[in-house]
């Protein structure tokens, strides 16, 4: 029944499309008819009211009949959902046609609401003196905040040029966001701990589902780089990644607090090792750098069987502060990986061929990497200084870019920037997944630096790279020490 309904609707879709424009391959002109779809395979019942919201998704046929047209014309304020030529021909994928026109109005409601940003201090404060009431309160904050942030991003997707929006990777992420938005906004208000548990379970599922977002976006950008200007890509990707990070922080914090609450050994707001949710009150600069240095060096040692360059610490190192350790670890991890690779490439490139064991004399030693740590009353600074040969001008001007529209003359980087994401279907953006070998740590993904910048700038920090072509590079990280900066969501 549903298949035939589909087919009928498709036919009438085609007819309508033809009537309104010359062809349906340039749907910008067919603004009166918008096809909508969801990536899920759920049937839209023809009569029942499937959602608790006030709108009923109408009969698919009626979408593209007069009702649909009317709805469309009244919706001139919102930009039309990008048309998908793939969907028309891809009937075998059994893609459902539902009308999201009324839902677009709901999206408007959410997208017009401002985002309530939070500071690290507030996050810590909420979690420090936990009580049932507090947990429920923060749960409700997350429950209302996540759909708003998702709505803003969905709106960004809708504002993309058509050719980018129909890219299958981008489309997939768009669909994921829509389904997450629907799920979250329809979640009832949390009143009891059981509600909170259910909410955390939902959010956990969503987090897992959305692990594909970074690789998909990267591959999508790869393919679309020639079609939109670099500035637009960078702005879009930065907003996406910042927002994604913020949603994950909120979600993971809520999940962690809930788990702590249920943990029988937990009696106060702080666990034994100083954690409040995902925030650690005992981040020690020196320990973090030493740990990360150990991890990165080990990988290079294992893979290439050489003694990688030392990482020396300098400056005022014994600084303890409150932060989300995952973030700093990731940034330092990526920077150190780049530095070590640069040094080896410059001073003993032959050793990068995996099976090469004999060409490096035992006494060979690489110039060390110097990490300087210091602090001001408001910030903590890290400087990673290496002698890895520097970054040539043509690459330096694009190190923060998500665009692959420039191909490098160097044979190594032929092809697109994020080409290796084909081997990496899911990515969380943490050190833990690389250490746990879910992502090979030494695989050059091309997203390390831009993602590190997102992590630093999220809480109002900064990441700058200065290079001396032919000698080496210096990276400067600045992060806030007091935790009183608002989230930076661009």
């Amino acid at each position: 029944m549903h298949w035939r309904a589909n087919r009928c609707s498709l036919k009438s879709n085609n007819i309508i499309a033809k009537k309104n424009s010359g062809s349906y391959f340039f749907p910008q002109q067919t603004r009166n008819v918008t096809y909508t779809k969801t990536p899920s395979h759920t049937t839209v019942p023809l009569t029942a009211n499937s959602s608790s919201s006030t709108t009923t998704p109408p009969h698919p046929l009626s979408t593209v009949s007069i009702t649909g047209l009317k709805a469309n014309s009244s919706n001139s304020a919102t930009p039309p959902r990008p048309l998908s030529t793939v969907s028309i021909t891809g009937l075998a994928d059994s893609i459902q046609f539902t009308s999201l026109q009324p839902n677009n109005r709901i999206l408007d409601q959410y997208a017009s609401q401002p985002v309530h940003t939070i500071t690290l201090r507030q996050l810590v404060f909420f979690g420090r003196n936990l009580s049932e009431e507090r947990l429920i309160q923060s749960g409700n904050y997350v429950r209302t905040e996540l759909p708003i942030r998702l709505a803003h991003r969905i709106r960004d997707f809708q504002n993309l040029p058509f050719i980018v929006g129909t890219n299958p990777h981008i489309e997939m992420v768009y669909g994921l966001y829509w389904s997450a938005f629907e799920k979250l906004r329809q979640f009832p208000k949390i009143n009891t701990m059981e509600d909170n548990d259910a909410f955390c379970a939902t959010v956990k599922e969503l987090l897992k589902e959305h692990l594909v977002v970074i690789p998909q976006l990267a591959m999508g950008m790869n393919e679309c780089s020639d079609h939109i200007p670099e500035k637009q890509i960078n702005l879009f990707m930065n907003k996406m990644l910042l927002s994604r990070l913020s949603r994950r922080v909120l979600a993971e914090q809520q999940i962690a607090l809930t788990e702590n609450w249920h943990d029988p050994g937990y009696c106060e707001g702080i666990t034994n090792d100083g954690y409040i949710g995902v925030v650690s009150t005992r981040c020690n600069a020196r320990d973090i750098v030493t740990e990360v240095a150990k991890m990165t060096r080990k990988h290079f040692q294992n893979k290439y069987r050489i003694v990688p360059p030392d990482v020396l610490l300098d400056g005022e190192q014994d600084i303890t502060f409150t932060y989300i350790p995952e973030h700093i670890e990731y940034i330092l991890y990526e920077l150190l990986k780049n530095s070590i690779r640069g040094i080896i490439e410059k001073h003993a490139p032959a050793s990068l061929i995996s099976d090469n064991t004999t060409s490096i004399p035992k006494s060979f030693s690489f110039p060390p990497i110097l990490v300087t740590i210091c602090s001001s009353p408001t910030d903590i600074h890290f400087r990673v200084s290496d002698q890895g040969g520097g970054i040539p001008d043509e690459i330096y001007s694009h190190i923060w870019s998500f665009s692959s529209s420039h191909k490098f003359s160097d044979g190594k980087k032929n092809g697109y920037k994020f080409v290796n994401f084909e081997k990496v279907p899911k990515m969380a953006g943490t050190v833990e997944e690389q250490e746990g070998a879910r992502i090979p740590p030494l695989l050059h993904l091309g997203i390390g630096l831009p993602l590190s910048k997102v992590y630093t700038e999220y809480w109002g920090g900064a990441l700058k790279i200065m290079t001396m072509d032919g000698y080496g590079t210096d990276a400067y990280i600045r992060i806030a020490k007091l935790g009183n900066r608002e989230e930076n969501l661009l």
Partner: protein
Amino acid sequence: MPISRFRFISLSFKAPRLTFTNTSFNILKRDYTTQDVISFYDDKVTKSARYTRSELPVRLARRVKALQNLPFIVGTNPYIKSVYRLYFNSFEAIRGFPEITSIEKDAEFAALLKETVDLHAVNIPTLAKGFQECRKYMNSEDIKFFLDDMIRARIGIRLIAEQHIALYNALHNDHDPNFIGIINTRMRPEKLIEQCAKFVHELCELHYGSAPETIIDGQIDTTFMYVPVHLEYIITEILKNSHRATVEYSQKINRYDLPPIQVTISQGKNNIGIRVRDQGGGVSAKDLPSIFDYSFTTVPRDEHEDHPTNNILAGVSTMAMQAGLGGPIAGLGYGLPLARNYAEYFGGSMHLMSLHSHGCDVFLYLKQIDESLDLQI
């Protein structure tokens, strides 16, 4: 001057030579020998002299005009007035110089240029003092705009004048084959930095009683084509700041051994990099946005306004510092913005990264001056 005339002249020459098209600087051949200098002569008149004689009055006139456009009260400040008079007189002198048709005239012209350059040597410190006194009559943005303009133009005027003087001297005396006028085709930054470091070290020791060492590392065998005087000025300014910061910060935190200043040289595909790294405590976040402003200095006010006459040593050291390139070791607030102007003149750049309570890194990127460099000067 119409461009076409010079294009014609430059095309008619087959011998390799230094030409200035109307506003761009073009070296056509690297290996510059005395033979080539001689080939300049056409009826015993150097093309360089002719170009200089016609170009300089234009630029000097523009400077006079700019000074005339200053607010009246600023213009009547004695320091600024003296600079204005200097420019006006030089303009008259060079404009009034008869056409160069013989070797004697050429010699006279070179002598006149030398005299002019010497007279204008302390323009910037004089202007600096003048603007310090006129701080309240002009807003800092206007001052910045005026000074940027003035300094860039001054660099250009000096470049043309000194280039001609040097070419003239090269023709008539022995000259270093590596030099085309004031441009050194094979300049070694390491040697130059060493000399500057020695000079600043002595200055610092004189003023503070102790001074940190300077270590030069990186690709020290780098050589490139540049104007040594410019680099000397920039490096001296940066080193002055580093030395002062190191000594004063070490005093503040009671650190007895002064950490050395590390200067690293690199040679990349498109430019030369020089990084000066010190452990002088860095620049506070509050001051960081204004370090490249004119007249911004972290030296306390009374230190440079009153000259202590009861302390002989202090007086001597102040005078010694005044004798240095462009001014005292610190206090006028012109060092960094001036150095940046010099760096940017030939398409380079200068950046400062600060690590609070540790030190500063100053990055200097310079481009080689060769055929491929096509800049308006």
